[in-house]
């Protein structure tokens, strides 16, 4: 128990989490502190490239095995299936209409890369390693959830606008910039290996955690602004969903990871991916494919409720689940 509290404390008092809190508080207090859009996008590109690269380099160092194929399949299945669970939970807990429920559900099947990064940062602090190829699993988990969400919406008789022009956002899904960057950097890391990494680690490794701080400051500002503008959309049932869903999703992900024999760190990471909710790829696809769904609901829930919950408590919890499952 002491151990658990120490772990939770270590996470909560890390500069990364505190930077998020600073952004959140500043935005809620209506400070005019703001990060330029180009800088936020630049920080995000840096993080995606850095973690893709790191994952690839680790694969180059440790080699591949059959597990990776299994991992990718499990990732796709989790991403496609979790929205079904999310949809049912949403309809039970929040009474959200079918279209909005489908849109929200899609976010929870997909993943949030910054939650992945925060989890790997916590694992690193406590000296737990994980399989580098989980970065590729993260990438393949981005998109399948979108298809499930659109299927859920079409079941409810609402595909896009009346005259059908919303249509399937195939292009938006398949060539989404963040997926391409993550996979691309992963392949580069794999190709260049540790020797290539040594050349660029002055940029992609040493300053990583500090840059992550600024990125989380920005996430806090955006999340706080969203909460301020859209808190009235967050009825208690929805907020409850935003906390229950990641815990349930995390547990399912943890069990899946344990079943395919991941390490303790790997189980924690797969749990985190399952528990996290997308805030880049999915909202943009929903805006095109389900224009009648309200962005204020899905964005605020993913970024204003679930992301802070995961950052502050979730990833600690998923690591505990992983330890308990693997005995690690």
């Amino acid at each position: 128990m002491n151990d658990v509290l120490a772990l939770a404390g270590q996470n909560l008092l890390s500069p990364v989490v505190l930077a998020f809190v600073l952004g959140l508080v500043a935005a809620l207090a209506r400070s005019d502190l703001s990060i330029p859009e180009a800088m936020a996008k630049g920080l995000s590109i840096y993080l995606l490239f850095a973690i893709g690269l790191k994952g690839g380099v680790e694969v180059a160092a440790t080699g591949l095995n059959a597990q990776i194929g299994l991992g990718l399949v499990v990732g796709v299945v989790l991403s496609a299936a979790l929205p079904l669970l999310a949809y049912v939970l949403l309809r039970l807990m929040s009474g959200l209409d079918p279209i909005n429920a489908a849109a929200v559900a899609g976010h929870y099947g997909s993943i949030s890369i910054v939650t992945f990064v925060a989890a790997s940062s916590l694992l690193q602090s406590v000296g737990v390693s994980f399989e580098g190829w989980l970065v590729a699993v993260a990438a393949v988990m981005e998109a399948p959830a979108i298809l499930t969400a659109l299927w859920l919406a079409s079941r409810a008789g609402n595909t896009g606008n009346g005259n059908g022009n919303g249509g399937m956002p195939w292009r938006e899904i398949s060539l989404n910039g963040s997926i391409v960057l993550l996979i691309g950097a992963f392949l580069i890391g794999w190709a260049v290996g540790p020797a290539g990494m040594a050349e660029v680690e002055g940029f992609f490794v040493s300053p990583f955690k500090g840059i992550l701080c600024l990125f989380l400051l920005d996430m806090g500002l955006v999340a706080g602004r969203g909460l301020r503008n859209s808190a009235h959309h967050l009825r208690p049932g929805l907020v409850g969903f935003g906390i229950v869903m990641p815990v349930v999703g995390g547990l399912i992900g943890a069990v899946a990871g344990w079943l395919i024999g991941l390490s303790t760190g790997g189980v924690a990471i797969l749990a985190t991916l399952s528990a996290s909710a997308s805030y880049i790829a999915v909202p943009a696809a929903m805006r095109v494919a389900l224009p009648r769904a309200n962005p204020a609901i899905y964005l605020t829930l993913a970024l204003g409720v679930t992301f802070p919950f995961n950052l502050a408590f979730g990833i600690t919890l998923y690591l505990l689940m992983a330890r308990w499952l693997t005995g690690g």
Partner: protein
Amino acid sequence: METHRAKRIEIMIETPALRRVRRALENAGVRGYSILPVEGGYGRTGSWSSEGEVSIASDMDMIWCIVAEERAEAVVDAVFSVVDRQIGVVTISDCEVVRRERF
């Protein structure tokens, strides 16, 4: 300098849908258009701002398009048949241009 009447079509559109509107404009035969960034706004769904945004999900863009008068209606129709009608704002107004053959 001799000037000629033309129409200015201004479209405020969600960035995720921009690619589709562009294709519609090009297919409708416009000779050109320009895209201006928009950094925030207010509407029925509340306020938004592009500050600090990593995702383009809540961003908007302004399309500024000058067309010959006789082509304006067809262009507006084309845009509307593609854009979901609940998204964005489309306005048409009069203007004068110098070289009519370019629009």
